[in-house]
């Protein structure tokens, strides 16, 4: 029964806590006896620490210890794989370097020491007193000239995400194509910059004579972090407890890089006190992960009437020295259009830069930008309407695998999006629309996102007073998890939402995967439903076996749960409240843990969400300033669990797409690898003044195959598509193609 709460635009259940400042984030736990850690970072990108003079720091007031590679606790290697995710090696997700184990330096900003003191101010000051002597080597900082280049086989070890693929014969098809187009698109390094900085509090204690670590950490991957900490520190997994009920934004960060929590745990062990390390915003540009820069070559072959016959998408990107993470730029190219000959490759340069990691729409955001800009260029070349060109190449099945889509209504998205923005009312000729000094342009792009689903467990408890609790170790990072899983649980338990709670953010709760890849709803929702079903089944059996129950003797299949009561399906008047059954049995509660995982539908269908994004831009060519005036988008993302929180997530993603398009870039000094953009004054994330009017509509058509809920994820699709829609609108406004993100004023301004 999914009609009471699920799908309703309810206010966030954690909203009151958030608007009153009572929601507690990681750095805010009141841990008795807390000491503060401050980190000393490497000034150079490549070399060796030849000497560390920590005397002044040690003698500074309040200092408890200075931890360096010389006295830091030893760590075990990072695991090769956690769950299904490849950790080490080319295409793996994380860096293999463990912090403070050697004197080697692989990027500027690498932690070289942690100073622990009794106050934040004293720790930070003492850290400034550490003197490091380097034996500096020349860093490799340019993708084009890097000596170590690899061709990673697959993304994160996933067999379905090969990174070097050829379908058909793209080379021959390109050579034979009547219309050919080859373009190079470049994108800069960007940073997630959630407003909550990374933080960890680590507390060691003895439990039953053995070491036990409690970790409060800004993480969207409780279980993976628990596993990594346990492996690295040589502890049984049960001896690490990770707690995080609120994450202050992640966007791909806070999941896959572990130096921050490891350093905190090591420092706490060294000083024998709980330690907190709050990373400065400056540090976030070194240790928090980033989206790598890309240089993408798109080659398209087409017939004169707009049938694309060949598509090549070759990406040069980079990672750090010790990570194999590869921005999978062809994720969109491989599936979006019905092209018989598709080829793509990803070449990875290993540089002396901080490690990259996923960032909202990994691959899709910048790879989709390049593809959808190239498609727009082809449309102009063919003198076709950009929407029409896309319709002529509409894929009715996945072109790479040949599998049918689980559900795809993209045509409706295009049609409705055109209406919303007023597409047909524009003058399609580039550089034809002007208001005073301002050139006006319209652009569009297709957007998509894979609709993944994973396995999860949940525990459902019904109490004798008729209330219920559902628990799962997932995360609240603004995605609305507390709210939508309470909605789903309430419906699954046939209880009003006020009588149900959903708990998360604790590694001791039943298993949930890392919150990422827009999979959480499709993963945790069914698990909550299944646990609810199982506990109701047990309650039915209890009632049926109780001679005093009106349901005595009834088969479980003949009993329904309705509005907090178990009733006979044949005669709903006959039944009783959940609490009554338990109270009579003298049970305070009844509990069930159960799980759900994807089945063979994953082999039968290709699961994706789709959408169409339309942008109107205003360009002041004299200054080079581009502002997005309007964004309109229509999405086919399955059924919405809560239109209110979904709307927020989507517009937030689109605004992040505005940032990626117009302003976000992290620069490193090309001589020494130091970040020269390393604060929020120089790294521009969109402000309220940059955010346009955004109109979002949904088809709200349930996906019949993904799960009983019919919901695909929505966390990332907003960010994808928006950059190309804006870039294509800039072309329409100015007649000029800008092929390098971000589109800052310096790139457009002309004498």
């Amino acid at each position, binding site marked *: 029964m999914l009609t009471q709460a699920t799908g309703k635009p309810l206010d966030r259940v954690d909203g009151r806590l958030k608007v009153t400042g009572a929601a507690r984030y990681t750095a805010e736990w009141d841990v008795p006896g807390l000491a503060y850690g401050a980190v000393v970072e490497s000034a150079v990108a490549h070399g060796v620490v030849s000497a560390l003079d920590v005397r002044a720091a040690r003698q500074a007031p309040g200092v408890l210890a200075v931890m360096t590679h010389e006295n830091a606790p030893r760590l075990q290697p990072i695991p090769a794989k956690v769950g299904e995710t490849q950790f080490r090696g080319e295409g793996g997700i994380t860096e293999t370097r463990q912090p403070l184990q050697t004197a080697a330096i692989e990027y500027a900003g690498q932690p070289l020491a942690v100073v622990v003191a009794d106050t934040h101010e004293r720790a930070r000051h003492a850290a400034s007193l550490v003197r490091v002597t380097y034996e500096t080597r020349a860093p490799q900082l340019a993708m084009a000239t890097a000596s170590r280049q690899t061709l990673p086989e697959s993304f994160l070890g996933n067999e379905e995400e090969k990174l070097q693929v050829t379908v058909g014969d793209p080379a021959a098809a390109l050579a034979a194509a009547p219309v050919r187009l080859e373009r190079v698109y470049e994108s800069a390094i960007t940073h997630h910059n959630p407003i909550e900085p990374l933080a960890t509090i680590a507390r060691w204690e003895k439990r039953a004579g053995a070491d036990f670590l409690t970790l409060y950490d800004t993480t969207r991957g409780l279980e993976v972090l628990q596993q990594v900490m346990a492996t690295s520190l040589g502890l049984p997994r049960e001896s690490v407890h990770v*707690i995080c009920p609120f994450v202050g934004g992640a966007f791909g960060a806070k999941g896959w890089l572990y130096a921050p929590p490891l350093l905190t745990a090591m420092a706490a062990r060294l000083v024998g006190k709980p330690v907190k390390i709050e990373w400065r915003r400056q540090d976030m540009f070194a240790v928090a992960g980033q989206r790598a820069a890309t240089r993408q070559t798109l080659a398209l072959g087409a017939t004169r009437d707009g049938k694309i016959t060949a598509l090549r998408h070759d990406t040069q990107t980079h990672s750090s020295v010790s990570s194999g993470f590869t921005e999978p730029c062809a994720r969109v190219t491989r599936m979006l259009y019905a092209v018989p000959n598709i080829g793509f490759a990803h070449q990875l340069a290993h540089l002396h830069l901080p490690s990259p990691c996923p960032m909202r729409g990994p691959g899709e955001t910048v790879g989709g930008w390049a593809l959808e800009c190239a498609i727009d260029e082809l449309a102009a070349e063919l003198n076709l309407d950009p929407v029409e060109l896309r319709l002529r190449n509409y894929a009715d099945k996945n072109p790479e695998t040949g599998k049918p889509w689980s559900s795809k209504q993209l045509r409706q998205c295009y049609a409705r999006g055109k209406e919303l923005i007023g597409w047909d009312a524009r003058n399609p000729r580039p550089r034809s629309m002007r208001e005073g000094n301002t050139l006006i342009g319209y652009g569009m792009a297709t957007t998509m996102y894979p609709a993944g689903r994973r396995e999860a467990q949940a525990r459902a408890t019904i109490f004798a007073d008729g209330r219920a609790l559902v628990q799962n170790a997932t995360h609240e990072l603004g995605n609305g998890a507390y709210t939508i899983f309470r909605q789903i649980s309430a419906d699954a338990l046939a209880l009003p939402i006020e009588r149900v709670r959903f708990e998360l953010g604790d590694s001791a709760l039943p298993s949930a995967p890392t919150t990422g890849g827009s999979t959480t709803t499709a993963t945790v929702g069914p698990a909550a439903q299944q646990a609810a079903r199982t506990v109701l089944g047990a309650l039915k059996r209890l009632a049926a076996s109780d001679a005093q129950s009106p349901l005595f003797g009834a088969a479980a299949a003949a009993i329904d749960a309705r509005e907090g009561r178990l009733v006979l399906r044949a005669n709903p008047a006959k039944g009783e409240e959940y609490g009554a059954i338990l109270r009579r049995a003298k049970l305070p509660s009844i509990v069930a843990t159960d799980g759900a995982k994807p089945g063979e539908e994953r082999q039968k269908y290709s699961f994706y969400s789709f959408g169409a994004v339309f942008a109107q831009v205003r360009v002041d060519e004299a200054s080079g300033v581009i502002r997005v005036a309007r964004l309109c988008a229509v999405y086919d993302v399955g059924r919405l669990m809560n239109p209110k929180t979904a709307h927020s997530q989507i517009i937030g993603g689109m605004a992040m797409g505005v940032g990626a398009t117009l302003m976000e870039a992290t620069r490193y000094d090309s001589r020494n690898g130091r970040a020269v953009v390393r604060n929020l004054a120089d790294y521009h994330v969109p402000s309220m003044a940059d955010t346009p009017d*955004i109109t979002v509509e949904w088809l709200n058509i349930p996906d019949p195959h993904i799960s009983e809920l019919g919901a695909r994820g929505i966390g990332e699709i907003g960010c994808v598509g928006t950059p190309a829609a804006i870039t294509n609108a800039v072309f329409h406004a100015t007649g000029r193609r800008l092929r390098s993100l971000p589109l800052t004023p310096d790139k457009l301004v002309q004498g």
Partner: protein
Amino acid sequence: MAKKARIAFYTLCKAMPLPPESAPALHAGDLAPNGVLPDGSHLLELRGRPVILAFAPEEWNPTHAHQSELFARLSREFGHGAAFVDTATDEWHSLDCRGELAAQFGVTGQRALFLLDEHGVVRWKTVVESGQDLRSGQVLAALEALQPAASGGARAGAGALSRRTFVTATLAAAALLLLPGCSPDSSTKNGKDAAPEAPVGSNDLLAVTLSINGKPHRLQIDARVALLDALRENLHLTGTKKGCDHGQCGACTVHLDGQSILSCLTLAVMVQGQEITTIEGLATGPALHPVQAAFLKHDAFQCGYCTPGQIMAATALLRDQPTRLGSAVEIREAMSGNLCRCAAYPNIIAAIQEVQRG
């Protein structure tokens, strides 16, 4: 694991048809009543050992149980066998029990901490200000009250209480009683060479009085302490957020004499004598401030981290409404000092406009 234990704790409580009438508040020297605890046992059963009893109001807060568990550990480590009973540990499942017990202690709807001695006599009590959480300093103060000689040094028979952990405890107590700056025991330091040469002013703690949300707070702090850190670390008013610490995001916005300012770029010592308002002090009663209510209604946040800063900025602007804030474009410009990476901006504008319309 912990959660399971909490569920197992649950004992059936009869539903109470009416909210309990609150008794007069208990004070030091009073004999505690024999109430029912969340696990179904009676307070009387704990006679013979000290009991720290913590009350919390009936608000859902998923962080409460974890924090409470920390305090229970603190009691176990330093409490000489004291039992820590949190009447909200099982918040969701024992509301009925708690209501009764809180009423018996005269603290219905309040956050309060009682220390009972082994005879069941109230030895110490504190009521936490509304909008704030119970703090470890207060739990430690209760433990200190239990053993006034505790700060005199290590005691024989303290069991697991090592010299080191004892220092930890007293330091923490000192810090949270707002007397930081006492040097840690020298045995905890690695360097034992010459006495450290104190940089200028390093040991000069300043007596600072801050007026926050209408109440004076006396602190002994380093001149370096920013108002933001004084709020978060010294006073544990963590609603004010640290996003960049350099005036580049607006998450730390508070009001100073009614104007919005950035607490990260304000030294605590410089704002004595001025009235500071934080998110905790915005609503005067249990009802939300209209801007908070509008943010909730319009979903003007996602992760919630920048939200207190957004709300403080918005409330200050709305006060200036006739001259400074009119159209959506003016709201956009005026609110641009508060970055929201979730980009709830359109909803924030809608929330502010709703309050504007009145």
